[in-house]
């Protein structure tokens, strides 16, 4: 019998249709309601307007959309014969604000999604503090606003640079926000120093903590999540950043990858109309996100985790938490490298001169975000957005399941609902 | 006899000064020349204008406001942009006919003796009333879809340069016909050059 479950307390809503046999999930399909038609809205608009429109795809990762758009338009400039070269300052500031967005996303997911759901699954009596994450996230948002004016929905990146012209006052302020956020994370979440945490090389090291994070780790084990939620053990990273290594990973073997191999295909959702398509890489489903990124970087503890627990729900969650700490450190070193005297913007050719196509690829919090744009004299002819959740949480047939579908097969419905959330579902992105 | 107000006196000076400056030239005309023609003492003249340079600048403002007020009336009338162009051309040529000293002063003194106006009359300061009205004219013309959206000075130069050139030719007595006989064709040419493409 097929049972429907509406899932909220994620970014937007999703409907999962479970086919339960012998008390375990035999198969599940997924539908995303509430289409917004952003690709259509973009058609006929001035290309630069996309920098204002696409961040509104998503309230939690709009900055990643902004970056994907600016990269897509800059690629169109290049393909149209006017290559844009960005200096270090521009690249680093863009990178910094993007990282901060990922950090706030991960924090909210840990406290608003993972902890409550895990506590509920294990019937834990721990007193939860979900709003802690809003406070931590607001510090990250301040760091973004220092350069980007505001978060969410900043539009401070433009082809050729960024709109802000920061002084050292701003750079130092951003650094103090990172310090504050790091202390917050150490004190409220880790219970130990971030350097100590980042030096962990084995999952056993998590036992040395007594904190929210060690609670999550213990509860994951208690729920058997180290033995559940396995996907295809294939990973994809496509966005090029200082903290990523674009690659396709089969188990532990790392190959190079190219976003040109990504396409979106119709999904299989027999019970309800879905507005999401599935994203495939060279025709196959790959898992995207923090675990993929950390695997691509050969981070020791994540390799250890993968050796022990493969691509289980445990690995997915713990790799993400580890990435949060990793990115905090990375953001600090990015700030140290910013040379304030470099130009913020080098005016490119007028957008009206550009008739070309371009692709922009970014690692959003949940994985590769791909924007493809086709311009005619600076006006958008076609715009295509492929989001990370389309990689992870597509809905396909039983013979060729998507990562999320595969991860839910063979477990109880309750476990499946938790495992589903370990992918950090972004329905709003997916139903762009 | 009704008492002459200070403003009327001032207007009188302006009128005489315009004539003398445009007939005799700016440098040759002296304050005693103007005072004599107005019928006042040189001492009294200084109660109205403290120097010849200040008078020169006030004259530009006077002309600019005079033309500006006329164009404003045209701008505010409920007629098509094409007709407005005709009305502006017509107003300008009539002025050149009836008050040639105003246009003469503008062309021969203001535009030819920039050193006199370099302080206090830079850029748009003294001609603001007139230029503002032309800006309004162009802005409304573009917004209504009648005129082509282009750089302001490209359009301004075409319009005013053309009119100024015709008045100059007229003043030099080169034009075979009266100025007013050119109104129609010139208005048409300006419209053709500026209209929406």
């Amino acid at each position, binding site marked *: 019998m097929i049972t429907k479950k509406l899932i909220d307390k994620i970014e937007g809503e999703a409907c999962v249709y479970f086919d339960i046999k012998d008390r375990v999930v035999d198969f599940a399909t997924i539908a995303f309601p509430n289409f917004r038609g952003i690709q259509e809205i973009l058609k006929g608009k001035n290309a630069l307007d996309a920098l*204002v*429109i696409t961040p509104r795809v998503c*309230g939690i990762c709009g900055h990643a959309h902004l970056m994907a758009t600016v990269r897509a338009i800059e690629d169109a400039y290049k393909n149209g014969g006017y290559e844009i070269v960005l200096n270090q300052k521009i690249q680093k500031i863009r990178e910094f604000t993007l990282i901060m967005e990922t950090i706030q996303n991960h924090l909210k997911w840990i406290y608003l999604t993972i902890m409550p759901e895990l506590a509920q699954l294990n019937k834990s009596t721990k007193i939860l503090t979900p709003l802690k994450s809003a406070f931590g996230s607001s510090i990250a948002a301040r760091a973004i*606003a220092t350069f980007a004016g505001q978060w969410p*929905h900043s539009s401070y990146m433009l082809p050729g640079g960024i709109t802000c012209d920061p*002084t050292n006052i701003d750079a130092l302020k951003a650094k103090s926000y990172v310090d504050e956020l790091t202390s917050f994370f150490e004190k409220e979440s880790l219970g130990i120093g971030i350097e100590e945490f980042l030096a962990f090389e084995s999952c056993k090291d998590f036992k040395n903590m007594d904190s929210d994070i060690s609670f999550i780790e213990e509860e994951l084990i208690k729920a058997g999540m180290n033995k559940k939620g396995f996907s295809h053990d294939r990973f994809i990273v496509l966005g090029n950043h200082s903290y990523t290594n674009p690659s396709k990973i089969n188990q532990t073997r790392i190959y190079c990858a190219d976003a040109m191999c990504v396409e979106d295909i119709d999904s299989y959702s027999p019970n309800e109309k879905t507005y999401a398509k599935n994203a495939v890489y060279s025709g196959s489903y790959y898992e995207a996100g923090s675990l993929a990124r950390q695997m691509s970087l050969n981070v020791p503890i994540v390799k250890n985790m993968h050796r022990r627990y493969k691509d289980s729900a445990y690995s997915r969650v713990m790799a993400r938490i580890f990435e949060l700490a990793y990115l905090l450190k990375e953001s600090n070193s990015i700030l140290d490298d910013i040379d304030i005297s470099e130009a913020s913007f080098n005016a490119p050719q007028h957008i009206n001169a550009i008739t070309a196509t371009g692709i922009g690829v970014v690692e959003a919090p949940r994985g590769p975000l791909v924007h493809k744009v086709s311009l005619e004299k600076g006006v958008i002819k076609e715009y295509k957005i492929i989001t990370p959740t389309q990689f992870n949480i597509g809905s396909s047939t039983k013979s060729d399941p998507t990562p999320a579908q595969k991860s839910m097969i063979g477990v109880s419905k309750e476990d499946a609902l938790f495992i589903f959330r370990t992918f950090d579902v972004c329905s709003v992105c997916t139903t762009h | 006899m009704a008492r002459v107000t200070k403003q009327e006196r001032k207007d009188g000076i302006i009128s005489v000064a315009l004539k003398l400056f445009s007939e005799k030239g700016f440098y040759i005309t002296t304050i005693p020349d103007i005072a004599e023609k107005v019928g006042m003492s040189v001492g009294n003249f200084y109660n109205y204008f403290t120097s010849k340079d200040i008078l020169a600048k006030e004259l530009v403002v006077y002309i600019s406001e005079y033309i500006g007020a006329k164009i404003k009336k045209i701008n505010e009338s409920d007629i098509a942009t094409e007709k407005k162009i005709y009305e502006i051309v017509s107003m300008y040529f009539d002025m050149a006919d009836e008050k040639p000293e105003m246009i003469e002063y503008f062309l021969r003194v203001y535009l030819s003796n920039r050193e006199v106006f370099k302080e206090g009359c830079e850029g748009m300061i003294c001609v603001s009333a007139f230029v*503002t009205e032309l800006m309004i004219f162009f802005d409304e013309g*573009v917004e209504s879809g009648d005129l082509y959206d282009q750089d302001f000075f490209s359009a301004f130069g075409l319009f005013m340069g053309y009119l100024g050139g015709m008045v100059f030719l007229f003043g030099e007595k080169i034009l075979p016909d009266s100025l007013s006989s050119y109104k129609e064709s010139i208005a048409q040419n300006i419209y053709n050059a500026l209209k929406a493409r």
Partner: protein
Amino acid sequence: MHSKQDKKPTLIWFQGLTCNGNTHSFFNLHNLENLLNKFEILYHPSLESTKNIDEITACIFTCDIFIFEGTYDPLMKRNDVLVSEILNYYAKDANYIIAAGTCASFGGMFKASAPERNSGLIFNEADHEGPIIKYKHKVINISGCPIHPEWLGYTLNMVLSKKELEVDKLHRPIELFSNLSHHGCTRNEYFEWKVDSDNFGEKEGCLYYKQGCRAPMTHASCNKILWNEVSSKTRVGTPCFGCTEADFPRQSLYSTKTNMSIPQDMPIGVPKRSYLTLAGIAKTFSIKRLEGKLIDYKKTH
């Protein structure tokens, strides 16, 4: 024995067609936890709530404060129930209905998803029409894409303290929306002396002439109550896109619409003639301090 908790006003946060941006923006409020503790949250899409989505869409409770985020789409369903039904049900008994963000206020970004039918709660752009127009006296629009956390915080605190909340003709609280987003912009002196910003990425110059800045035409207190308590669009050189107004989103957002180099839209209430007179004169002056860089790092090295 009644605990204090029983007397907390009840609150439902419900969503139409949205990006969740208002939810996430509100999460940035500095004193969020203390403020939320003053309410009983019956439902919020991201926060722990006392009721679940099934109970909420069954329309069996009432609430004191109903917050709606997102564009209203008459065909949209949540949990198989028409949003229109849910909206009308809760609006009937709520004391306050808050439209959180421009989508809920005027239709906003996602009006374009289905322009012929989508709208805000009591406004369709600037036209006074919408699904709960009969409850319009209870509706407070807090426009902004996204909503400014402190604007919503202020409104909830006003509601809690039972203070009279005056609104403008678009139902926005006047204490938040009587300002223009131009007020408090760090570039004001450049506006006064008509010094344009040559390019993006500069501290200097005003963005009104070329870069499309709508701040003088936009009711919002963004430069008075800063974003994330830190900054604002114009302070970081991004033009104001007018996201609090009923006509958001406009087009060609990074360039100023001009007619023969003359800005088409004037600061609110300023006659074009007066503006052009002043601008023409101001542009005449060459003020070295305003034309140069504020800081030349290359030189000071």
